[in-house]
């Protein structure tokens, strides 16, 4: 019998090594796997490269991980926000490296890694400072920039429900980067609000098939769970 569920958050993040590249789902706080991030902080891995759309909000979740000083680099599209004070201070102190990527290129680079694509030509960013030094090509009269895939050792994502084979469904706009990050990491760890029996997720609406997921851990039942589809 295959059972990808693990009993504890500690087990869920076991084996995350120093120097790992870790994708973390979420757009701001929607879809951020806070329980897994807290477990990672307790686990202690360092010299991490983090991939997320943002660079932490407030003092919790990703911001709390940055505050530990264990993140050497972040790949993201929108680090600067009104409540990104922890990242801002690290960046200004030269204590964190930033790779800034337009959001759609970030998403497609993650998807490309998961889909086995070695690179792709994107029109986004052509002629801007974010394309400086990159190979360009004129295709059918339009300019494109060569973008590379982003692979990860681990992905930490949040879903609404999962089963023991790792099939996942998400909730509203908390889906965001979860499905593509699950594809792009060697080991995807999903924090779910509810673990359900095999067969309880309608195969027509499973968003992430279990092949992309290695570990599932239940972490708290969300208050709005009853009304979610």
């Amino acid at each position, binding site marked *: 019998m295959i059972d990808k569920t693990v009993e504890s958050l500690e087990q869920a993040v076991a084996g995350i090594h120093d120097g790992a590249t870790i994708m973390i789902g979420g*757009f*701001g*706080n*929607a*879809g951020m796997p806070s329980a897994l991030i807290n477990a990672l902080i307790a686990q202690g891995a360092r010299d991490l490269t983090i991939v997320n*759309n943002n660079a932490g909000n407030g003092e919790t979740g990703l911001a709390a991980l940055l505050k530990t000083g264990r993140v050497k680099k972040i790949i993201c*599209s*929108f*680090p*600067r*926000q009104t409540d990104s004070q922890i*990242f*801002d201070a690290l*960046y*200004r102190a030269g204590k964190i490296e*930033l790779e*800034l*990527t*337009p*959001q*759609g*290129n970030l*998403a*497609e680079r*993650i*998807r490309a890694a998961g889909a086995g694509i070695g690179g792709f030509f*994107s*029109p*986004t*960013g*052509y*002629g*801007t*400072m*974010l394309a400086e030094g990159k190979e360009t090509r004129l295709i059918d009269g339009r*300019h494109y920039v060569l973008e590379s895939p982003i692979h990860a050792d681990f992905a930490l994502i949040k879903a609404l429900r999962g089963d023991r084979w790792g099939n996942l469904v*998400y*909730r*509203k*706009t*908390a*889906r*965001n*980067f*979860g*499905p*593509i990050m699950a594809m792009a990491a060697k080991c995807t760890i999903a924090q779910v609000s509810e673990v359900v029996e095999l067969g309880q997720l309608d195969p027509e609406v499973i*968003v992430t098939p279990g092949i992309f997921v290695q570990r599932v851990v239940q972490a708290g039942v969300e208050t*709005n769970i009853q009304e979610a589809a």
Partner: protein
Amino acid sequence: MSRYTREQMAARVARDIPEGAYVNLGIGLPTKVANYLPADKEIFLQSENGLLGMGPAPAAGEEDEDLINAGKQPVTLLTGGAYFHHADSFAMMRGGHLDICVLGAFQVSAEGDLANWHTGAPDAIPAVGGAMDLAIGAKQVFVMMEHQTKNGESKIVGQCSYPLTGIGCVNRIYTDLAVIDVTAQGLQVLEIVEGLSFDELQKLTGAPLLPAA
């Protein structure tokens, strides 16, 4: 000199959005356009974080942290709306499926270059988000901005001095003084705020204008 208010600018942009259009409204001033879309027409608002058919802000107490817009504010989903992941969301932009996006700007050049993500200040922390994808993706890119900076400098310029978001991507500019199309012939004035002459508008604008027909 009279100027269009921000509300009037939003209402003016909304008039140019037809029923059935798939539209992305940028963060800030463009968000106001949603308040002026006619209730009797079906217009599809897209949000970059995976939402099509976005509705207005929820009533107090009805907020859901899993249902937010690109500005991370709580929103609602209209009946018939859909959720999708980030790669699909940006495929909608890059793939040319959106009819219109409305963006704010620091500067627009005479040739439709857009600068709206970075002031270029050496101590600024850069953040681009979806701006570059939107700028090059939608079939039509509308810019909403004040005609001049607080210091009285024209935001319509010969060449952008701020770092670019996209090249030749802007189709129409809505300012507090005028509505201007970016055309192959140049910047074509469509409308001017009441009481301002074309020559006066030209003096306040950092690139040559073509008078309204």
